[in-house]
């Protein structure tokens, strides 16, 4: 009898919680895939395609689906570290196959040489190049992600990737050298033995 009561009680509980869970899974359903959003937020959004995917979002989806997270050269080690933390995966060194970490660059159009073919405008993934057919084009420097995609299509090779220069706003003090980081302050020691 006792055992019957226990079984009935457990079954009743199971039914109640099952119904509750079922209700919750319908009612509180999360739209989209939050992991993909989180990964996408970490990726640098250069949309350069160096990872082999047509943009950062597709790569985020691929990572969520199990692809390795070390194929993003613009993000570099910091992005890999953040992704490792987010996904609970091991840190991997940057996959050299997809390129190397480099200084930040932006595209610059040598305007005298531009023939106004609009090919770079079509290639730019973030609409950061303005111009019209037969008219000179120019890059909106602030919006350029430095993805490199406009360099290849240019028929007259008038696009350079120039390193981003430091400005008064972006300048900051360097980290101090730390303990023992200043060799000029060492006291010379002579071994007498």
């Amino acid at each position: 009898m006792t055992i019957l009561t226990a079984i009935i009680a457990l079954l009743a509980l199971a039914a109640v919680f099952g119904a509750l869970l079922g209700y919750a899974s319908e009612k509180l359903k999360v739209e989209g895939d939050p992991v993909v959003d989180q990964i996408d937020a970490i990726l640098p959004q250069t949309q350069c395609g160096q990872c082999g995917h047509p943009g950062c979002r597709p790569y985020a989806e691929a990572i969520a689906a199990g692809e390795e997270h070390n194929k993003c050269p613009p993000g570099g080690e910091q992005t890999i570290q953040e992704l490792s933390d987010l996904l609970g995966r091991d840190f991997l060194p940057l996959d050299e196959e997809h390129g190397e970490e480099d200084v930040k660059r932006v595209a610059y159009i040598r305007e005298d040489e531009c023939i106004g073919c609009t090919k770079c405008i079509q290639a730019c993934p973030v609409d950061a190049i303005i111009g019209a057919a037969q008219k000179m084009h120019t890059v909106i420097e602030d919006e350029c992600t430095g993805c490199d995609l406009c360099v290849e299509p240019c028929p007259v090779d008038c696009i350079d990737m120039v390193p981003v220069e430091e400005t008064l706003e972006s300048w900051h003090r360097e980290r101090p050298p730390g303990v023992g980081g200043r060799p000029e302050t060492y006291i010379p020691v002579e071994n007498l033995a």
Partner: protein
Amino acid sequence: MLSLLRGKREPIHDFPGGIHPPENKARSTAAPIRPGPLPHELVLPLNMHVGAPARPVVALDETVLKGQLIAESQGRISAPVHAPTSGRITAIEDRPVQHPSGMTVTCIVLEPDGREAWAELEYRPDWAATDPAALLEQVRHSGLAGLGGAGFPTAVKADPGEDTRIEQLIINAAECEPYITADDRLMRERSPGIIRGIRMLAHLLRPDEILVGIEDNKPEAIQALRSAAEGTDIEIRVVPTRYPSGGEKQLIQLLTGKEVPAGDLPARVGVICQNVATAYGIYRYLEHGEPLLSRITTVTGDAVSHPGNYEVLVGTPVKDLLACAGLDADRLGKLVTGGPMMGFTLPEPAAPVVKTSTCLIASTPEELPEPPPEQPCIRCGACAEVCPANLLPQQLYWYAKNDEFERAQQHNLMDCIECGACAYVCPSHIPLVQYYQYAKGEIRNQEAETAKADRARQRFEARQERIERQKAEKEARRRERREAQRRKQEAAPSGDDGTRSDAAVQASATSAGGGSAASGGSDGSGSGNGDDESRADERARRMKQLKVTYNKANKQWKQAQAAFNKAQRDGADNLDQLSANVDKLRTRADEARAELDALVQEAKTDVEAATGRDLKTLKKEATDAELAARRKAKEVQAAREAGATEQAQSLEREHEQLRQDADDKAAWLKRVMEEQGMKEDE
């Protein structure tokens, strides 16, 4: 003595931490304010204030008068620049400025002519009767920007917004940093002006209370202010000397007990804080019309023979000012700008004195020696005891050192005012502030990058969306066109010219609709039956094939011919072989061409059979109809220009008919040709 000076004891609150570094103020307070030098050139950076840089409004070689506007403010948070003396603009170029990086900034370079000829100034002696909003607009043109060293545009600060009620206006006269005495001397000598400036600020802000916070190490200044403020509602509140009581948030806390929330402005708690020199600047501007042209800068240190306060024209190169104060270059060690606690070593003495330059210390190596080497943190906690912002400096130090910026932010790194009290007391001589500045800079850059990445994401997504949309629109348009064509064909009568057979119409309708050609119904009258249909298709395929073959063969033949010609010129041995090759390819091309021609001929015959006319006639008809339509269009145009509206309207109707006819004929011709597997070029 001090309690006597204070008179009645006002309630003084407290702020946490603070230190008592040696003051070293006496040597620069001894002498009265002296005029600064008139250098051979003045260098005026466009970003002497916080916010957007000013935009030059003068041209090269232009002659300007003293007080004339030479760069206007850009945007809300900005301040204009005026010519500090009369002279000629000799350059607008990048010059080194007072910045720890030693970087250059766009500056206007002015060569003084020594005449000191004033521009026409706008006085505002009636300020008390002026509407505060209008007066504020006026102050915007004064070029004033926080003279205490922060450089925040004064007009912006004096405009907390309609719905913000200001309880206290605080005038910061604490001047807590060692060595600096510029405000002290200013108060001793020009108190009446300061008090008038304060009253102008009060007129703008309408506060409940006006408090002047001043440290008790300036008894003469307190005395001067007291007597000048006699009979007004301005309260002079004396606070004990303790660094950094002159920090904006610290002084607010000292005088009112209010704490400014993290990352917020004092206006949030109903307080506006202005420097005492700024108040004097407002007085000079409103009552004398003088924009900010000069400031009082303390020049001190063991390496100058005449330490003291100088009224320096903005833009005077530091080296000229030091020469004026009697610099002994041999004894000069570090040249520090802005005070020993919060200032920095000036990398370039050619940099100019700007609106925020409070102090220059030309020290000897003994006076400000190189800091001893950094030792490991022993976790003594002395830094936490002196931190005026109630932070945990050693925790922040660990995070900054190990690049754990997120944790540093969680520990409110951004609330650090970089006063340097922690580094001052650190027994291990850790340059703590430098660590914080590094971490703050990194965090700011990362935030900028994240913001940029977000923007890039939005732009990328918007672009993808646009491409998708355009594709869908194009597809919809195409479908619509096809549909319209089909409907028109179905509805059209069997032809105004009577020669178009129903069958042909039907057959074309089916092919235009993209349906299978074999299903094209035929009801007898002859030519367009299913058999024909498939024959035409077959022919079209064959034609395409032949065309490709012909093109290829023709090209190969031409290449072979060229090779042969070259071989002949060079006198090669294998001429025979090449010649045979040329012939073979020639034959192949000719064969393909012949077959193609035959097919085209066949197709033309079929067209004739189907429509009762030959292709030439059809083409001519289409062209004639098109020409007629265009002529009519010109007539319409002419009639319109001549002003004959009614005539134009009837012509317009005719034109529409003709245009319809021409379009029909052109479409029909195209369709007929397509049916027979021909393209227009054949």
